[in-house]
């Protein structure tokens, strides 16, 4: 299991979702990806994307006006 980070700052949805989707394609089951973004729309869109595609959002938190959404890659 590896830990990765994705910079999606200043992108507006659905770009953070697209970037997450494309990054996850390169990863393996169980890998962890922190998506750092600023569009609050990502708080609903990334979990929705994860649910329908078999991945899991394990946490989301706000740090200095930035959102960090952590995704565990599914099978």
């Amino acid at each position, binding site marked *: 299991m590896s830990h990765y980070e994705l910079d999606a700052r200043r992108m507006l949805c659905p770009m953070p979702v697209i970037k997450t989707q494309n990054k996850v394609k390169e990863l393996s089951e169980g890998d962890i990806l922190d998506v750092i973004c600023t569009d609050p729309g990502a708080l609903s869109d990334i979990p*929705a994307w994860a649910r*329908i595609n078999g991945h899991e959002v394990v946490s989301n938190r706000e740090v200095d006006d930035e959102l960090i959404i952590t995704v565990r890659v599914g099978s």
Partner: protein
Amino acid sequence: MTKKHKAIALISGGLDSLLAVRVLQEQGIEVEGINFYTGFCVEGHTHAIRNQDKDKKKRNNALWAAEQLGIKLHIVDVIEEYKDVLLNPKHGYGANMNPCLDCKIFMVSKAVEWVKENRKDGFDFIITGEVIGQRPMSQRKETMPIISNESGADDILLRPLCAKNLPPTKPELEGWVDREKLYDFSGRNRKPQMALAKQFGFTDYASPAGGCCFLTDKNYSDKLVDLWDARGSREYEMDDIMLLKVGRHIRPKPEFKLIIARDAGESKYLEGYRKQFVTIQVVSHNGPLTMIDGDLKPEDYDFAAGIVARYGQGRDAEQVDVEISVPGEEKLLRSIKPLSTDQVNKEWHV
């Protein structure tokens, strides 16, 4: 063992594509969704920026629809490829800068590519939520074969909601899909779709009347044409098309335009562009952040600042202090008199 056939569905997030997928699922067909992001999609943008939209439910309708349907959704960034569709539409534009027919042909052609890449996984046809007569430009009886032919989809493009009004497609002829269980919807009347939605138990679908593309919007199209005219070129980048969605646009001279934030949300959004663009802000009173697109010469600083001051709380003051930030240079502080309402020419508003 009989081969299981799968379909890829163009998902916009609206009611028609939602229904088209469910109609095939009812026949036991496995479907996955594909959604194309052109940069002009209304989805998700302005609600993330403006204060007044903060309370609106934030959801991407395509993702939401996929979740309701229990299908996977592939969202594809086509921003670069879409430029050619917008700039050189073979079939022309609609009422505004919307190249709807070329857009549909483009999206179906991308779905054809996807099917070719995923045929090994059993995908061999495409479905859309198109209904004959639903849209004045792209969804007409005569455009249906044009879309099938010019996209390269030919007989693997199935429209479940109006299939009975069209010649049978390969999925129907081969018996993968039962044509009798498809529909014959036509025209702009939405009642048949609403009745079918009720039958399937869909209640909270996206507004049927809602457009999904900024290019169908007159104000947006006017701003886009103004941008192209001012630059003498129809090239555009992602930032250009995003910024057309933000702020009040005022062009007092051909060579520059002011983008004046309309609320704190837009000011915050424009903050992200400070390192790339000249910005002007009144600092002695509350006022919006303003970004300059184009070439603002030093002799026009006070003139531009006077316009900006018109939109802040110091609009009636004798003098206001204004900060002008030019990327890579020291900030300039000027005292200027705000322009009066009459001095801000209505024709400057884009």
